[in-house]
């Protein structure tokens, strides 16, 4: 069990440490939150200090960063992207919109709670969260990883039916490849 914090195996300790210190972000720039990512990564706040780095494709990424409200149309793409990522993988919900819909609480077109559809490891509150809170969110994620609690991918796989049910409720025309691992 790689996530076990108390694992005695030196391999696991090293692996967890490496995972913790190398988080490659796939910033899914939905909504207004995408604009907070550049300041987080550039010279003012310098997210690279914590081993954060942008990844170009889901195959390479570790963290899926959902930056803001998700329209149902976008949700479909996000689910697809998430399923293309390779585990261990983490999801960070960014901004109030991902938590309870935020200012889009009554919108006909956006989902209100991201964790019904994807296993969110960390939520970052705020509308919008400032780069400081983004970084603190990532530090929280690192902490969870080192404690072995950031096991969203496993949760997703285990409760796939529940997630699928929720997903199909909002995405009416469900034509997606199977997720079988």
């Amino acid at each position, binding site marked *: 069990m790689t996530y076990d914090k108390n694992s005695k195996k030196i391999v696991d300790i090293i692996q967890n440490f490496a995972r913790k210190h190398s988080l490659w972000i796939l910033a899914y720039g939905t909504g207004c939150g995408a604009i907070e990512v550049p300041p987080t990564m550039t010279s003012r706040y310098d997210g690279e200090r914590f081993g954060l780095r942008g990844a170009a494709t889901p195959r*390479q990424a570790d963290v899926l960063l959902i930056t803001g409200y998700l329209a149902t149309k976008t949700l479909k793409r996000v689910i697809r992207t998430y399923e293309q990522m390779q585990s261990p993988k983490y999801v960070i919900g960014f901004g109030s919109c991902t938590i309870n819909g935020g200012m889009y609480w009554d919108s006909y077109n956006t989902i209100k709670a991201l964790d019904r559809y994807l296993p969110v490891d960390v939520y970052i509150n705020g509308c919008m969260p400032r780069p400081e809170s983004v970084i603190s969110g990532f530090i929280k994620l690192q902490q969870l990883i080192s404690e072995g609690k950031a096991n969203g991918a496993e949760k997703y796989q285990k409760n796939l039916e529940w997630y699928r049910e929720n997903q199909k409720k909002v995405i009416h025309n469900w034509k997606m490849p199977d997720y079988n691992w």
Partner: protein
Amino acid sequence: MDINWLKVLGIIITPIIAFIVGVAYGGIVRNITARVQNRFGPPVVQNFWDIIKLYSKKTTVSHGWMHHLAPVFAITASVTTLYFIPVLRDSKLFANLSFSGDLIFLLYIMVFGSLGMALGVGQSGNPNAAIGVSRGLSMMVGYEIPFVLALVAIMIQFHTTSLNDLLAVQDKFTNWIIFQSPIAFIAAILAFLGMMGYAPFDVVIAPAEIASGPPSEFGGKYLGLMQTSRSIFTFAKLVLFTDIFLGGAGDFGTLIVKTFLLYMIPVLTGIVNPRFRTEQAIRFFWKWPTVFGVIAILAVVMKG
């Protein structure tokens, strides 16, 4: 049959040293880039964590056996290139397999990896990856020309195609080939910029345009092996250039200093430059570097 155990040991530890140095250079480069951009930058060991993390990914997607083998091709080319370069001058341990007569062989083995990678990338079926390969191969035609011109100039100047002989020529500081044929060095170092793939010649992996291009379908252990290979290859190319132009190195301290200084040329160029389009890059290589290369050859021919 007597086995040269020293050689075997060298063969085993050379890639390991190359890996460590190459990855550490990668970390230092990220730091330097950060400083230039007025940032603090990641820790120097960051690239090690990245590679370990990639290897410890639990799932990987493969598109077929050519895709599976692509990083293997890459690392074969890197390690083999390294094997045929004398890492340290007059060292029994690090002489590796570098028999004489191997510059042309090196030119060919260096593209082995690119071609293998390109094949694997092709199987992934990602159009972005194919675009990246198309750009990469076109660029290669660009920078190989000045590089070969420079090498030919050196080969005919010293009447050898062997790295060992070239090392023997550069027995003292003033005899370094960088001083003996500076124009060839200019041509080669301009080609070197293209070879290393830093800006302005990074159109191949342009992440914002074509989603990192060739490696876009590679993740986990495949990407890890590719990064490993890239680190080793970087080190191999640096050592090759040091051996050809800077008189090689007698000990590791000198080697580190020389390769690091050499490495800074593409890195610092890259930090302050935007990106060339493919055809601009090719035309650049066919213009000034090629002119320098031709001048280098003409100079040698004139001298007799």
